[in-house]
């Protein structure tokens, strides 16, 4: 496996001068590459190196760097090696290339990322709405979206039910007259 990993890293870095390989143990190979080369490297990995399976596309919000990171996770059935391809997209103008002509299932992941992070995929043919129905707020998975404040503003909250929460033992004691052990007393409010 180590030989094969070295081979993969060698081939990719030969073909893609901008690809940087990050060291990882186990059956994982890891690259970082500028976003323009993503379709090229994915095509190459799939057609020339046998990484037939797209496991996932995941997204990370680097709020401090003002960037989104996209991770394409590929798997090869013959080599039993997985490849992670990382790329960064500008957070103010988040546009990425669509890759659903390579793997059809990418369409679903891209729709989800578009809805949850607000990243546009150029050429993605799919209805705007995916999981969220009639959503009017900002993309909810972005880190600058305050879910708690949004939930408090949007949904009526049963305040007392939380702040007066009783230890369940206390409730049982009041119902049945059962004696509370000492340690439990300090939890009942």
């Amino acid at each position, binding site marked *: 496996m180590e030989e094969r990993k070295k081979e993969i890293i060698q081939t990719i870095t030969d073909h893609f001068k901008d690809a940087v390989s990050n060291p990882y143990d186990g059956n994982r190979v890891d690259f970082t590459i500028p976003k323009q080369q993503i379709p090229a490297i994915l095509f190459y990995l799939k057609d020339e190196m046998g990484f037939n399976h797209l496991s996932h596309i995941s997204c990370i919000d680097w709020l401090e760097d003002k960037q989104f990171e996209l991770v394409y996770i590929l798997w090869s059935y013959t080599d039993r090696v997985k490849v992670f391809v990382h790329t960064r997209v500008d957070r103010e103008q988040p546009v990425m290339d669509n890759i659903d002509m390579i793997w059809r299932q990418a369409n679903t992941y891209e729709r989800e990322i578009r809805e949850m992070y607000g990243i546009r995929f150029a050429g993605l043919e799919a209805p705007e709405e995916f999981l*969220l*129905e*009639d*959503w*009017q*707020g900002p993309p*909810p998975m972005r880190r600058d*979206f305050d*879910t*708690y404040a*949004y*939930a*408090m503003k*949007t*949904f*009526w*909250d*049963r305040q007392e*039910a*939380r702040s007066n929460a009783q230890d369940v033992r206390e409730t049982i004691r009041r119902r049945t007259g059962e004696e509370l052990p000492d340690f439990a007393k300090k939890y009942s409010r």
Partner: protein
Amino acid sequence: MINDKVSQKIVDIIQNFARKHSLWVLAYGTGCGAIEIPPTMTSRYDAERLGVRGAATPRQADVLLITGYLTTKTLKRVIRVYEQMQDPKYVIGFGSCTINGGMYYDSYNTIKALDRYLPVDVYINGCMPRPEAVLEGFAKLQELIQAGKADGARKYKENLDWYRANQKEVIPVWRMPEYNW
């Protein structure tokens, strides 16, 4: 037919007795609590002893069992389902998510108090409630039915404006008929 009070009362008692022993349940299992329904219904806890059985469609069901959190998306469907059910109908809120939001209290798309949107007759607390608790909830509902106190459907009809206003607060795009039963 019957218009004197005494015979009406006797009819009510018989009617309630019959109703409480034949509860057809429509389990709306979107929350994680739905996993406790199969053990409740099958041989171990055997809810059928109490006359509790599953129903296939809303129009055949008496009890709407809401097992856990409701997103605004599912709330729409639940409202349609509830309004399609025929009288007598009851709602059981199952799990702390229906009571005060539970562990989804800060989620961006789940409602936090079911009784603002639908009339809940019985709450079963716990996250998730065990089958014993579920059966206790059903026993409580039977008690209420026998006493004639499980009148959520009437409450809903009489205060439809209030419920609708609350529903529309969280469902901004209302593509449903205003009144559909």
